[in-house]
């Protein structure tokens, strides 16, 4: 299987180490390259020890929110008499993000092993991989990998002769960004519209079918076999203190070599753009970067000389998010970008919370009117004010996800709005 992009020598390949191997998706390849060593090891460990190891790795959720994974695992009441479920969020939909695809396509058994280790930690015996409907070929590939694992004794009863039982299934979504939000995903899994739930209770306590549920992103589970095999510290040491390990960074936009690259946490952002991704075409200058999917506040070029870790981005008021890094050169019209981003959120708002439903729609309308030649002087302030009124006023993070990039664009790229302000366009 050809890789979508050439690897870079600057990568540290941990979760992507099998990408590019012949038949990398087969169980035989997986077993020949450390496969299931970690599961057997975990089977000998106490559940608390597994969770401690994950905590020691300082692994944080790779889906977007960046919550400490070990801590999340410790919230699941493993002694609850209710059945417990492992859910995988493979609803990858955050604009700029295209990494979970590769983990499922090139190394499905690593994901399966990560799920199994999680099942030992929280005493679960059933799991579901929620895959966005557009990824039909990946549902088929995961089904094939799951079937192979069952056939060879790595799923089902008495897994690998260890006496552990676990059943794993795929579940198809049908097109909804909102279902990447964990409680909306659970409603969708239950056959309903994907609308976020009120928290608490958190999914750890009452998730899928009101049972204790562990829900993580594909990449998060995929990092677990390495952590158990080599130890949490070994993974943590690949990154910086508090920002352990590596992560898949999806570089897109104005670069010569766009692609998905595995980089240690704390890797310099400018080096990622200029060396890993081959720099900006036509000798143009950098204008802006989305550090982790379109929900993150945008960075101006002069803010980008930073190490890519959770804490540094937080200090800048942005996020590492889902790892979707979008690079924009000096020719980029930030008003058009803001409009496109807002068209997306207005389309994807589930409509449950009024500030999000109305806010995204009005922001889209104002931006569209500006681009269409009817921009008013007061529009810029109104964009900022409307966005700020959405922050923190919705059940889920979609409202914030729409507001934050808009606020950052309005505040940091004010000069781009000037040309859209038409003096004669006044409110009548």
């Amino acid at each position, binding site marked *: 299987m050809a890789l979508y992009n050439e690897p870079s020598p600057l990568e540290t390949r941990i979760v992507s180490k099998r990408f590019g191997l012949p038949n990398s998706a087969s169980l035989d390849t997986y077993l020949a390259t450390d496969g299931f060593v970690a599961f057997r090891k975990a089977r000998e460990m106490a559940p608390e020890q597994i969770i401690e190891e994950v905590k020691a790795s300082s692994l944080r959720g790779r889906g977007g929110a960046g919550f400490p994974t070990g801590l999340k695992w410790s919230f699941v009441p493993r002694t609850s008499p209710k059945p417990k479920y492992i859910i995988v969020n493979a609803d990858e939909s955050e604009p700029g993000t295209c990494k979970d695809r590769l983990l499922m396509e090139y190394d499905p058994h690593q994901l399966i092993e990560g799920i199994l280790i999680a099942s030992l930690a929280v005493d679960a015996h059933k799991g579901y991989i929620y895959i966005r409907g557009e990824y039909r070929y990946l549902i088929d590939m995961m089904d094939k990998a799951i079937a192979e694992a069952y056939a060879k004794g790595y799923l089902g009863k008495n897994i690998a002769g260890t006496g552990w039982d676990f059943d794993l299934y795929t579940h198809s979504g*049908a097109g909804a960004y909102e279902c990447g939000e964990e409680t909306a995903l659970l409603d969708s899994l239950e056959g309903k519209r994907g609308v976020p739930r009120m928290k608490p209770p958190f999914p750890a306590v009452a998730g899928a079918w009101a049972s204790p549920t562990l829900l993580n992103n594909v990449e998060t589970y995929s990092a677990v076999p390495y952590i158990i095999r080599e130890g949490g510290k070994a993974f943590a040491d690949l990154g910086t203190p508090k920002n352990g390990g590596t992560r898949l960074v999806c*570089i897109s936009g104005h670069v010569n070599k766009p692609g998905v690259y595995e980089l240690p946490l704390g890797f310099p952002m400018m080096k990622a753009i200029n060396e890993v991704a081959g720099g900006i075409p036509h000798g143009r200058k950098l204008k802006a970067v989305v550090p982790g999917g379109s929900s993150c506040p945008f960075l101006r070029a002069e803010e980008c000389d930073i190490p890519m870790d959770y804490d540094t981005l937080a200090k800048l008021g942005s996020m590492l998010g889902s790892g979707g890094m979008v690079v924009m050169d000096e020719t980029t019209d930030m008003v058009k970008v803001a409009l496109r981003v807002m068209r997306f959120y207005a389309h994807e708002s589930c409509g449950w919370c009024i500030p999000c439903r109305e806010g995204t729609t009005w922001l889209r309308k104002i931006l569209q009117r500006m681009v269409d030649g009817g921009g008013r002087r007061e529009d810029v302030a109104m964009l900022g004010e409307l966005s700020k009124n959405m922050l923190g006023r919705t059940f889920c993070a979609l409202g914030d996800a729409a507001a934050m990039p808009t606020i950052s664009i309005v505040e940091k790229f004010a000069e781009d709005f000037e040309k859209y302000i038409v003096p004669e366009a006044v409110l009548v």
Partner: protein
Amino acid sequence: MTFSPALEERFAALLQKYPEGKTRSAVIPMLIYAQDEVGAITPELIEEVAKRCGVAPLQVDEVVGYYSMLHRKPLGKYHVQVCTNISCMLVGGEELYEHAKKKLGIGHKEVTADGQFSLEEVECMGACSWAPAVEINYDFHHFVTPEQLDKLIDGLKKAH
């Protein structure tokens, strides 16, 4: 309603997948797989899925209105989905979509007169690093230029 043996087999497996009594979970996967065969989410299909999953037809109907991949009207045999979201937009996604409109002579969510092609401007499909991207039915195409899109469409016309 009757379906192909392959789809019946899939439905049977779907109804077994979820915990006991939780067959409502099969509604969305059943709808999307059935749509591939039937061509659209028809009122009869809604009734049928409701019956098989043991839920009220309204519970199926409300789901259809929510998910962007579920369609009440038939799509073309080849559903051309062009992404214009941020990563694709930066490298020509919008121009590619405009090109597709001209090439097919139809707009967003429209179907050609012969029923062969439909077009949709879609949101991020997870191909950002290999943009601009197009998905035709369930097949991804990366780094697509207008010329390549012409070739793809012409190839499908010939295959027909």
